């Protein structure tokens, strides 16, 4: 067992799942939300030559995706260290 106790293992897993769900809700909002469901509403806002909804669908969502993964990597590394389950 890599964890000090069963409780620690449970706590690690629930923090992991919570982090995942938070990041996935951002993932959902920028793509399915801004890019698809509310695209018409957002299109009434302009950012230079872009309509905002269109921009999210073809540019913005992708930038957010990249950031989400690196944020996940960073936070998970911290979590691993906190619970002492980091690989050597």
């Amino acid at each position, binding site marked *: 067992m890599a964890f000090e106790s069963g409780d620690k293992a449970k706590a690690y897993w629930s923090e992991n799942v919570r982090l995942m769900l938070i990041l996935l809700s951002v993932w959902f909002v920028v793509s399915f939300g801004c890019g698809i469901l509310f695209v018409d509403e957002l299109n009434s806002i302009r950012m230079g030559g872009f*309509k905002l909804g269109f921009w999210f669908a073809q540019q913005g969502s992708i930038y957010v995706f990249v950031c989400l993964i690196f944020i996940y990597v960073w936070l998970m590394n911290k979590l*691993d260290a906190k619970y002492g*389950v980091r690989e050597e």
Partner: protein
Amino acid sequence: MDVQTLTIIMVGASFALYIAIAIWARAGSTKEFYVAGGGVHPVANGMATAADWMSAASFISMAGIISFIGYDGSVYLMGWTGGYVLLALCLAPYLRKFGKFTVPDFIGDRYYSQVARRVAVLCAIFVSFTYIAGQMRGVGVVFSRFLEVEVATGVILGGIVVFFYAVLGGMKGITYTQVAQYCVLIFAYTVPAIFISMLMTGNPIPQLGFGDKEAGTEVFILDKLDGLSRELGFTEYTSGNKSTIDVFFITAALMVGTAGLPHVIVRFFTVPKVRDARKSAGWALLFIAFLYTTAPAVATFARVNMVNTINGPEAHGTEYAKAPSWIKNWEKTGLISWEDKNGDGKMFYSGDERNEMKVDRDIIVLANPEIADLPAWVIALVAAGGIAAALSTSAGLLLVISTSISHDLLKRDLAPDISDKKELMFARIAAATAIVFSGLLGIYPPGFVAQVVAFAFGLAAASFFPAIILGIFTKSMNKEGAIAGMVTGVLFTTAYIVYFKFVDPSANNAEHWWFGVSPEGIGTLGMMLNFVVSIVVSRMTPSTPIEVQELVESIRFPKGSGAAHDH
């Protein structure tokens, strides 16, 4: 030097590079053949994953599709990138910790069942073959246009090169050639895009350029394009034609399908640590994003450019006799054609009855440098890039097919006693056979190749994804549930696609679709069905054995991944 000589030089040089890498990175054991020894640096793996992922379809076709359907094309942009978030957060780290070689490995072990393993093997092989036929075709098309050889000759040449590094080097050879191929293809994609962006807006960054004003005017490019679209009877470029529910379902199917594709997942078995698997997914998406955020810019520029060249600045049409050379060059390939309906000797392109042009969407990327009058070496570069994209994806898929046969089917199922050396030999034979077979599919493409692309994603979404997710995030999911779910998902998705694509294609419209979801998006519904059936069935059948529950516990944290990898 003319375009053809330059193309031969560039393509030849890139081939020489790939073969040199193949000889340097020969695989000596099955572990090197299947997962490159598990020692690939996460950034290198990210690059290899990006090349593996971006196929001839991404390189050649995607910008063209977006160019023709505008906003609706966003489904591909979001779908084929958003899947990596799912991969990084929900799959890659856990599968890496599990530490075997393939997706069927995981399904078979986690669900303690040879039946589940065989279902997974069948799905993996089917998905990969569907995909690879299109790749070999892509190689053939690029060869035939740029080097003016027969499609068949092109396919055979490409096949020989892939044979070299896939059969010799296995995953090790493939990984390092894919790194080189990524560099070639991204350079080939962005250079013309930067040129065109400069030309049309004066902004050197295409991602910003297509939100800019047209050079020398006060009109935004996208507004101009919306205006042109309205005048010519097309749908406005920045709004779509598809219903919101369909866009939603297609995007979801592509995202989930991406996360469930075996040739993508297997790349995360090649890095040394669990945290490398996470990081590697981030690098992969970053490298993919360079192309995927450039594509919509290329699409916009190319659209404006093409309409202007064909219809002329006054939008009265251009005389065919004075047509630019690219139109005549590409007429030979049949990708563009003109029929003088009103007999005025002028070409005209529109979305209504005035239209006289037939334009294939693949032309957008391939002919773009010619349309924009870029130097010959840029055109040659695009040819080398297109071939790199097609070859890198083919190689990754070939490996999945050969591993499925030698490892999943023979070693783990039918002939568990074979030695490592013998298994390696079978892997090479399987890879070689698969190359010949897919080459034949490329030379004699069955009419349904284009039709079944949606199939690969729908199938991956409806089969693997729920089984893997439930296998990681629940301990109670048992073999009965998983098998029932996979079979239901696959059968439902297959039946829906086959019905609308082959049995009754005339009914393939929103009126007849269930909930307005097209066959492209049905994988999402198949996936939901899979989840529901799996959970219901698992509640009614015996619970999972204790050792499987321990396996699930052990993949949920990173420590000790090295040990797991050596079995």
